[in-house]
């Protein structure tokens, strides 16, 4: 059997115990890792062999569940998707930026979840159909119109990267608005007007200034920045129709 190459890895992890600490502080760990491991494996090795009090979220370990988002050397990453071989020296691990810290690497995601709900991220069918009337039909071309935006795993890396969300916490944010766009683009959907009431606001898409950081950090190539620009264009056309056409025709 081939020898698995080992590597001593130094982690600097931001700790916070709400019952004891007034402020977070860094704690250093040195742990033996396999060369091909990811940061999540290193954290688990720390928890199992050095410090069982270390808290962090994770689940699938294959970048599909979106649970393990954190800052690795200041960059929003899924810890299961951050390979140790990409890093040299001490690896700094912090909870996902722009969210309150619950404990250690665990953040409070409530704000994101509330915003997700607010944009009505579900099909509001254009035509009501009973089961007996059969299924909604959709061509591959119609599917392609929104498919990319359906790939979001709600990992919140985009919120951690977005400086406008950092500056204005009321901003609905990239993932939520991109998801609204996903449904607006779905040929079966008729709920665009309802969603526009939520996202065509100053807290919605108009807080976005196309920094593009969200798309750069997205692990699923959803391109939320692109989605938001498309929402801006569509909302602008709406605005002109509502204000210039007689009766505000849609």
């Amino acid at each position, binding site marked *: 059997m081939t020898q698995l190459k080992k590597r001593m890895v130094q982690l600097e992890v931001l700790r916070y115990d709400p019952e004891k600490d007034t402020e977070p502080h860094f704690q250093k760990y040195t742990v033996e890792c396999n060369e091909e491991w990811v940061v999540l494996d290193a954290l688990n090795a720390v928890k199992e062999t050095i410090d069982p009090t270390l808290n962090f979220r994770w689940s699938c370990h294959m970048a599909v569940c979106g649970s393990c988002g954190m800052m690795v050397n200041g960059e929003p990453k899924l810890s299961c998707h951050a390979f140790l071989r990409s890093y040299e020296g001490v690896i700094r691990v912090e909870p996902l930026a*722009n969210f309150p810290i619950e404990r250690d690497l665990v953040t409070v995601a409530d704000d994101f979840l509330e915003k997700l709900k607010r944009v009505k991220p579900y099909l509001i069918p254009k035509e009501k159909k009973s089961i007996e009337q059969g299924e909604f039909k959709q061509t*591959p*071309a119609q599917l392609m119109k929104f498919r990319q935006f359906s790939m979001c795993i709600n990992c919140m890396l985009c919120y951690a990267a977005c400086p406008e969300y950092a500056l204005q916490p009321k901003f609905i944010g990239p993932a939520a608005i991109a998801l609204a766009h996903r449904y607006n683009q779905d040929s079966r959907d008729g709920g665009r007007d309802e969603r526009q009431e939520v996202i065509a606001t100053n807290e919605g898409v108009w807080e976005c200034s196309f920094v*593009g950081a969200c798309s750069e950090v997205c692990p699923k190539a959803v391109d939320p920045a692109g989605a938001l620009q498309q929402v801006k264009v569509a909302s602008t056309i709406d605005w002109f129709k509502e204000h210039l056409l007689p009766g505000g025709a849609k």
Partner: protein
Amino acid sequence: MSRKPYIRQVSKTSWYLKQPRYMRYMSREVTCIFIGAFALLMVCAVERLSQGQAAFESFMATITGPWSFLGLFVILAFAVHNATNWFNVTPKAMPVQIGEEFLNGKYIVGAHYAIWIVASLVVLFFAGVM
């Protein structure tokens, strides 16, 4: 067990210094200062033009010289920076779907560069430079 979530403060005035991608974003955004300055310069030029030959030629004399050249060169650099960034992001804002595929962004970007070159040559031709 009591909860006491900790909110990390972000500097409202220096956040963009923390990451290269934020600096790149700001470099794009500040082009507006130079485009705006240039637009105001053109307003002055039109105003002077409307006041007759003496006024306009006095304006021309003011914008002749090394400091003027330097300032305009800086404006040119930012104008080009704006142009290249603008063209590169256009496919994201306006994707072109053909059937089941999306047109590769490079064609949209390429077309913009082509129009840029043609438009510039046309202007230079009519300005008597070419």
